[in-house]
């Protein structure tokens, strides 16, 4: 293998390139129009544009990816995760093109791609499976469901990530839930097939990392616990599981290896299990790819899973270190997302103006300063991984690293992650898959700093701005800041904070640069980047960046209002602005229409969710600048309702 094409984007492309560089393998990126400026494109030796922003026009185009490999002389293809990673047709096309496919055989992918077939094959191999039933369309739904037993889950056969999944508590809601799941599955995966599966409450999600080679070796590289999920999306993953002991680990590994052997599995894969409160485990599915959360396994085993994938793909046997892995310590990964947690985990977009972490953690990210989180893809900013001797230490290091990190420019779930990592239920190891759904996102997603701490951070930001302005002054730069012979008024700065749309900070310095206002706070030092204050006898340094202030207790997003509003930017009364980034799915009215208050005007789609935009008051639609299919950003003018 001399040159590897990664048929993926973002952090996983960079992750794979990193191993390639270490091993002396050349790298090729493919990219969509939306990713043309992304770091992974710049880092690859060669890069080929695939086309439009939508996945179907770019990363899902098998012919274009294979052609890119041919054109760049790549001799191997790594699919990453998502997109074409579990697409047997793609794997076959790569192999047919005479290239090395980094992944399991197309047969294994196909077999595990159908959840119903996977269940059957696993059951046959002696792996415990939950009671469940495949729906073909002809059967009597109620009878089949009764056979599975309530509560049950309706799941998309081709699914993943919680899409097309419905929880059904009793027979009443069954038909509607199945129909909804089918619709969602059809929209998301192009396949409406769903199946029923017994639902075990208060269970955990535990998965075993498999690695197989062409020489008959299938090895389990321990389990990962991914129980901390919100709406079936993993948030925190760790290795090992806090509830799996040596005996259970042996059983899980044995079951996973059995599953792997049944498939003659090569490369990296993951067998997912549901672990009940009674410590019974059941097969859920096999993921025939590298998982998002693979770094925790790498941390604990000291192995580079991508390196193993490449070795196996080349036909080499797994090295001794992989065959007899020695676990060390505990690793936890947190997924940092651009999302508004208190608003109900709403996806966010925007520009990540700055992203920096201390070197106490591993950071896998596709983002660099100035990168845009676009609405086209998953809004993950980074995976942050801490590794320590104990789980408690790893959680502490990870929470601290996240709290102190510079994650700026867009709304993120960072403070939420810190609160989860410091949550009693998580630390005690009791958090199951419903832990987050039981919690209030407004509480768990609340800013780390309270309103008073934010006020002080805003003061620090104002004083840093002051220092910058004095440094850059063209005249009188040596004179005391804000000097007045008649000190009538204080200086002011106004910030948008997590608590306040317009927090006004007033400050006044004396001739020696001491703080006269606000009273009771001593200014030790103010530079454009750092401010040191003493408050109630405690000295604290504030790191001030353009969009945020870092404190020892956490970082807070603070954006200063411009001193003067640009009158041309003012919006007219009755304007409806887009509450989030997305696509205009349908326009329900036309310009000039009379609408009553509450009338739906248009439908936006963001992250597969549909949001109706309603008329705030009765009136005439005087402006309607958007059309079906338009991409809109937060704050884009959608319509104006006039008198």
């Amino acid at each position: 293998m001399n040159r590897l094409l990664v048929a993926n984007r973002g952090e996983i492309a960079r992750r794979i390139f990193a191993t390639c560089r270490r091993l002396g393998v050349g790298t090729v990126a493919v990219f969509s129009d939306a990713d043309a400026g992304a770091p992974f494109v710049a880092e690859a030796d060669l890069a080929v544009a695939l086309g439009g922003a939508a996945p179907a026009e770019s990363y899902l185009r098998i012919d274009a990816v294979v052609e890119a490999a041919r054109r760049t002389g790549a001799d191997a293809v790594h699919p990453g995760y998502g997109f074409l990673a579990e697409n047997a047709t793609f794997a076959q096309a790569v192999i047919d093109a005479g290239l090395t496919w980094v992944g399991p055989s197309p047969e294994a992918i196909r077999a595990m791609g159908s959840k119903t077939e996977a269940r059957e094959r696993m059951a046959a191999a002696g792996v415990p499976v939950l009671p469940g039933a495949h729906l073909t369309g002809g059967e009597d739904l109620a009878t089949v469901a009764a056979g599975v037993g309530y509560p049950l889950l309706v799941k998309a056969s081709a699914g993943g990530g919680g899409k097309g999944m419905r929880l059904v508590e009793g027979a009443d809601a069954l038909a509607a839930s199945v129909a909804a799941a089918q619709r969602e599955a059809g929209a998301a995966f192009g396949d409406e097939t769903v199946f029923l599966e017994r639902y075990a409450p208060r269970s955990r999600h535990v998965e075993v990392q498999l690695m197989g080679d062409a020489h008959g070796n299938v090895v389990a590289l321990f389990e990962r616990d991914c129980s901390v999920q919100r709406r079936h999306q993993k948030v925190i993953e760790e290795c090992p599981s806090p509830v799996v002991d040596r005996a259970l680990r042996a059983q899980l590994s044995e079951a996973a290896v059995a599953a792997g052997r049944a498939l003659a599995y090569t490369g990296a894969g993951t067998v997912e299990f549901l672990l009940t409160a009674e410590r019974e485990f059941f097969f859920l599915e096999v993921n025939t790819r590298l998982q998002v959360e693979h770094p925790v396994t790498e941390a604990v085993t000291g192995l580079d899973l991508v390196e193993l994938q490449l070795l196996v793909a080349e036909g080499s046997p797994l090295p001794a270190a992989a065959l007899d892995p020695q676990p060390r310590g505990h690793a936890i990964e947190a997924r940092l997302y651009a999302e508004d947690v208190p608003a109900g985990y709403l996806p966010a977009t925007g520009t990540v103006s700055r992203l920096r972490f201390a070197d106490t953690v591993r950071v896998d990210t596709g983002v660099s300063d100035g990168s845009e989180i676009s609405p086209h893809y998953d809004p993950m900013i980074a995976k942050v991984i801490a590794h320590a001797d104990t789980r408690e230490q790893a959680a502490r290091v990870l929470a601290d690293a996240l709290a102190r990190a510079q994650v700026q420019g867009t709304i993120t779930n960072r403070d939420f992650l810190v609160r989860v990592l410091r949550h009693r239920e998580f630390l005690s190891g009791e958090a199951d898959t419903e832990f987050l759904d039981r919690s209030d996102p407004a509480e768990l997603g609340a800013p780390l700093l309270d309103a008073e701490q934010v006020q002080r951070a805003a003061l620090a930001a104002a004083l840093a701005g002051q220092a910058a302005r004095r440094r850059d002054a063209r005249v009188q730069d040596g004179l005391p800041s804000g000097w007045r012979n008649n000190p009538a008024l204080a200086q002011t700065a106004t910030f948008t904070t997590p608590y306040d749309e317009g927090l006004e900070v007033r400050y006044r310095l004396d001739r020696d640069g001491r703080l006269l206002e606000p009273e009771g706070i001593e200014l030790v030092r103010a530079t454009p980047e750092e401010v040191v204050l003493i408050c109630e006898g405690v000295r604290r340094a504030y790191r001030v960046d353009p969009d945020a202030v870092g404190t020892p207790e956490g970082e807070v997003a603070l954006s200063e209002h411009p001193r003067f509003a640009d009158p041309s930017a003012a919006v007219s009364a009755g304007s409806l602005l887009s509450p989030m980034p997305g696509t205009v799915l349908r326009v329900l009215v036309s310009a000039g229409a009379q609408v009553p208050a509450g009338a739906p005007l248009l439908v936006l789609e963001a992250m597969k969710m549909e949001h109706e935009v309603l008329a705030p008051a009765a009136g005439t639609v005087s402006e309607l600048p958007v059309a079906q299919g338009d991409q809109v950003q937060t704050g884009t003018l959608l319509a104006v309702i006039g008198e």
Partner: protein
Amino acid sequence: MSVLRSQLDPRTPAAQAARESMLGRLAELDELLEQVNGGGGPKYVERHRKRGKLLPRERIELLIDRDAPFLELQPFMAQHADFHVGASNVTGVGVVEGVECVLGASDPTVRGGTSNPYTLCKTMRAQEIALVNRLPLINLVESGGADLPTQAEIFVPGGAIFRNLTRLSARGIPTVSLVFGNSTAGGAYLPGMSDYNVFVKGGAKVFLGGPPLVKMATGEESGDEELGGAEMHARTSGLADYLAVDERDALRLGREIVAGLNWGKLGPAPAPDPPGPLHDPEDLLSLVPPDPKVPFDPLEVLARILDGSRYDEFKPLYGTSLSTGWGSIHGYPVGVLANVRGILFSEESEKAAQFIQLANQKNTSLIFLHNTTGFMVGREYEQGGIIKDGAKMINAVSNSTVPHLSVIIGGSYGAANYAMSGRAYDPRFVFAWPNAQISVMGPAQLAGVLSIVARAGAQARGVPYDEQADKAMRTAVEAQIEAEQTALSNSSRGYDDAIIDPRDTRTALGFALSVAHNAPVRGAEAFGVFRM
């Protein structure tokens, strides 16, 4: 260049008494400033705010660069008179988009922002500062025009305001009017004579004659908006160059206008990164004895205002009651003339005349630290030509063209006030410490002189002298001069530009030097005939 040492020990009882006394004076002034800043009082301020309007100092704060210094001029104007202290306007020098500008804002909370004789005095001084230092001038207009009861004092001389605007413009000094409210009749010529005008929509009202006057004059029925509204002037008359949507927008536009002036300073730039003084300016509070008759050493002041406390004294052994020498303040080279023991003799006068010529030869600004009781009198000195020699100094001061900055740190009496570049000798700025005293002579001396003259008159007429009346007269005169010679009293009459906290002396001088360097700094090519 030698470094000044300090003998001042702020821990001594005398120093502590001096500090107490100075802090007391500052506290009195602070109290008065609160009154100044309160404008026309809570009722009128409230009414103004209810109209959604900003106060004059708020307007100024929004117009100037954030965190930049601002020198308010003559805030105590009219304190002694029957007008509101501050004289219904705010003037000052501030930095707008990196450009030092003179700002003048009428205060509509004080009698509608109308101009009385003291307002006029303040406005004229601000215009003079703009002219001599070459600073763009920005008027923040909302004024009811002339204070009618005092129209006789202001109407005729007040015409100069408008003349000055166009003269500034003719000298290449831009003038800007931001009109927030009333600017009618004569006031209409503020925007009328300005280079750039911004009118606030719904606020600016600019016409020669309002509806009643028009009705009286021509019988025409009309309304405010059509006669002088912002929109009308922006769209129809063309008097407004920019239409602001609100007050803040007007200030934003004002800043944009200045940013676009392509302004450059014509004086040399200061030396970069000048060192601060080695001695703590805080000690300046402890320097001045409460009793004005007790002298103090001005070199202690220089040690706390000059860069690195470095002072190259010129002729240190000659005419020792006036110290002359070279140093720099905030990187600007300066020559200093400081009274050491109060009296100017012939030697001091000649030394000063020579030193002022040297400063002009090398294009260097001059700082005058006043603490003088006057030129020496007496037979010996008159016969020695004290008038001739004093005249040399006054000649040199009068014809010197480098920037002069005067700081009254103690007394400034008699013709020595002139010779030390007192107000009438056009220094670029005059600053006074709170303890400053200015008058033709000291109260006791003045009363004594009057007494001696009266006694001599009585004797000549051969009538007995009324000792009782003499005593009463002396007490009355002394009290009057005591009251009139104070810093506040002089400031109230516009004889200084600001009373400053002694600790701010270096800052005020650095500010003034930076301002003065907007104009070319060039020494005189000729002086008057020196009487030899």
